[in-house]
């Protein structure tokens, strides 16, 4: 097998404090070496000029929904993989609320295999926490874990019943598994589609109070302490909820959380004129909550940024706001939107990249998100300042329901490598 060298790049790997210009050698799908500026490049290597761009580990996205199986008209694994690599993502943890739900070991194995078949991304499936993700009977957590489930969640549904949540956490602790919770009190959220406040009042939309998040987080933090289980909250979006997690971490709790780009880059005003592409779950919040999310990212309370990719087709969204399906695509825009935090000075480039690579890999307990020599050559080459405009209809992949339609982003993926093979080139 030939050697490839990607030279004239800024090597960036927050997992080992690597940030310098130089080059990277690829051989047999692995990272074979890192070089500094001025080092002699091997004669026999195929050369790729990185043109001064940043070369980082391929992104690790810990919260992705895919339409397959069951809703292939929205997104297939293959189309999601195309969107992923266009966004520099080479590893994704996939939510189990498909049709059928991923509550059987065979389905876990199927998803992993289907990911490998694309040759572009590694899929780590979450297993269903309850059978059918229906919130009732406990799924076969141990068997699912044996088959490769990376953690357990009912995806976009919170476990409503307190005693059941306690039992699930308790059982998960016994097998050393992480439980991922959608942080929203289901009863308070039921029927709502916009965060409570002036805007939802003016537009006459059924409201969800921001406190629905804090109430569930408070309950589950207490249950995690009661059971000793590893608990992770997905897509946190309110200052109050993040504050509770900050306090729990200060007490020594092992709780972790992630957020998604819409919650730090947009606020509720994106839904003006009943824009259904900005209908998300949890809903876009007030400006004060958006600032709270940025503060949580800056002070380390929030452990990772995930795309929260949720594909819909046009008919899911061309409906009156309350009837439209919630969720937005996020794979292709994950890096660009996150880079806006760097350009604004809210996060360093190194910290932002850690939140997209090493940190989610650590939370998921997987070998990914680093430029370690001898590791799999999953790479993302991006131009941190290059501007591009998000356009629904022109995004890679099948689903086009981006909440960022029309936004100008700075930070563009130029190339993505999976196991040493280039799978995307801009």
């Amino acid at each position: 097998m030939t050697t490839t060298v990607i030279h004239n790049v800024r090597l960036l790997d927050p997992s080992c404090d690597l940030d310098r210009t130089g080059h990277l050698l690829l051989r047999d799908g692995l990272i074979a070496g890192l070089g500094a500026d001025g080092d002699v490049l091997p004669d026999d290597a195929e050369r790729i000029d990185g043109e001064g761009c940043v070369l980082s580990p391929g992104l690790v996205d810990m919260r992705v929904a895919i339409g397959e199986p069951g809703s292939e008209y929205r997104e297939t694994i293959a189309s999601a993989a195309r969107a992923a690599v266009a966004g520099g993502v080479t590893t994704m943890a996939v939510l189990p609320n498909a049709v059928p739900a991923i509550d059987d070991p065979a389905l876990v194995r199927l998803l992993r295999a289907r990911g490998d078949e694309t040759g572009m991304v590694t899929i780590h499936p979450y297993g269903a926490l309850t059978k059918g993700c229906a919130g009732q009977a406990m799924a076969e957590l141990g068997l699912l874990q044996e088959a490769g489930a990376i953690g357990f969640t009912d995806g976009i549904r919170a476990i409503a019943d307190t005693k059941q949540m306690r039992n699930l956490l308790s059982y998960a602790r016994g097998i050393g598994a992480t439980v991922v919770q959608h942080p929203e009190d289901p009863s308070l959220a039921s029927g709502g589609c916009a965060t409570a406040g002036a805007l939802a009042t003016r537009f006459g939309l059924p409201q969800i109070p921001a406190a629905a998040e804090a109430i569930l987080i408070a309950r589950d933090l207490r249950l995690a302490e009661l059971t000793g289980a590893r608990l992770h909250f997905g897509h946190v979006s309110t200052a109050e909820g993040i504050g509770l997690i900050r306090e729990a971490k200060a007490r020594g709790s092992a709780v972790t959380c992630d957020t998604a780009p819409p919650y730090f880059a947009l606020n509720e005003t994106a839904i003006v004129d009943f824009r259904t592409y900005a209908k998300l779950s949890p809903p876009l919040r007030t400006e004060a909550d958006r600032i709270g999310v940025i503060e949580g990212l800056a002070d380390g309370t929030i452990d990772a940024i995930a795309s929260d990719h949720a594909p819909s087709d046009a008919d899911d969204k061309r409906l009156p706001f309350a009837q439209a399906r919630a969720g937005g695509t996020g794979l292709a825009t994950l890096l660009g939107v996150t880079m806006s935090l760097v350009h604004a000075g809210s996060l360093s480039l190194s910290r932002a990249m850690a939140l997209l690579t090493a940190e989610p890999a650590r939370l998921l307990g997987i070998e990914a998100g680093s430029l370690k020599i001898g590791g799999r050559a999953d790479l993302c080459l991006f131009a941190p300042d290059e501007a591009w405009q998000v356009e629904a209809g022109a995004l890679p992949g099948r689903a086009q329901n981006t909440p960022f339609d029309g936004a100008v982003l700075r930070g563009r993926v130029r190339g993505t490598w999976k196991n040493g093979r280039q799978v995307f080139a801009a």
Partner: protein
Amino acid sequence: MADTAAMPPLSLGPASVASGQRHLLGIAGMTAAEIEPFLDLAESYALLSRSRKAPRDRLQGRTLINLFFEDSTRTRTSFELAGKRLGADVINMTVATSSVNKGETLLDTAATLNAMRCDLLVVRHGMSGAPQLLARKVEASVVNAGDGTHEHPTQALLDALTIRRHLGRLSGLEVAICGDVGHSRVARSNIHLLKALGSSVRVVGPPTLVPGALADLGVSVHHDMERGIADTDVVMMLRLQKERMGSGLVPSEREYFRFFGLDQRRLVLARPGALVMHPGPMNRGVEIASAVADSDQSVIQEQVEMGVAVRMAVLDRLSRGGYA
């Protein structure tokens, strides 16, 4: 976190908004100068209607479709009469007889109406924003006849016309809107209109129906009926939907009437000659006592009459290209 630079929100591209002035989708955003011509024209139509001299040729050859996804006899009849008095061909489509129940989407319905060369489309829908969605897709001018808990602009215009005829102005008034304001599209449209014309609005009811967040609309919030209607020029009562009972928002009709019903004893707290209004249909003995509903201060029947006149004015102006 003092050193955290707060990144501003990303700006998005413009939404594909239906051009507001070809349609009447809501009162929010309208100025006094845009509202008043509707009232002036409606006033003249009210007089012409009384003398049976409405211009039958104004909408001759135009097709008006009343597309109602929610039951309504009064509003639909009012639009139908308004269209017919101006000579339009009026078709009523209601949810029970349309293909919407067969799974046709709102936008398929829009395409069908386009093919029928509809000129004026009056829409009532249970979901906030449904008329906006239709307005982006149809060639007709769309009139919102009530969408979810969002807006009911012709109701606000007819209420304003009724007030102006009795009190001579729409500025500097104190208006109380009482009842299920949180779920009311009538209240929202009235609040926007009265504030645009320079009046003050209070909203009155129990916190489950009148949440404090309504203050964001620029009104004062009252949970005490006596204080809420004290020294007001207009008391607007809203219909209490039966489904609010038993859903945990209000315990019973008799308790509601005891604390929030409008009776003579409470009405005397308003200014002498204050107007009593109700968009109908009334629940006598629930939100309003019969003696008040039928009193000299009640202008409820006149609201119905002005409703037809206002809808004539709206159809007329939109058929002439809008109100820009």
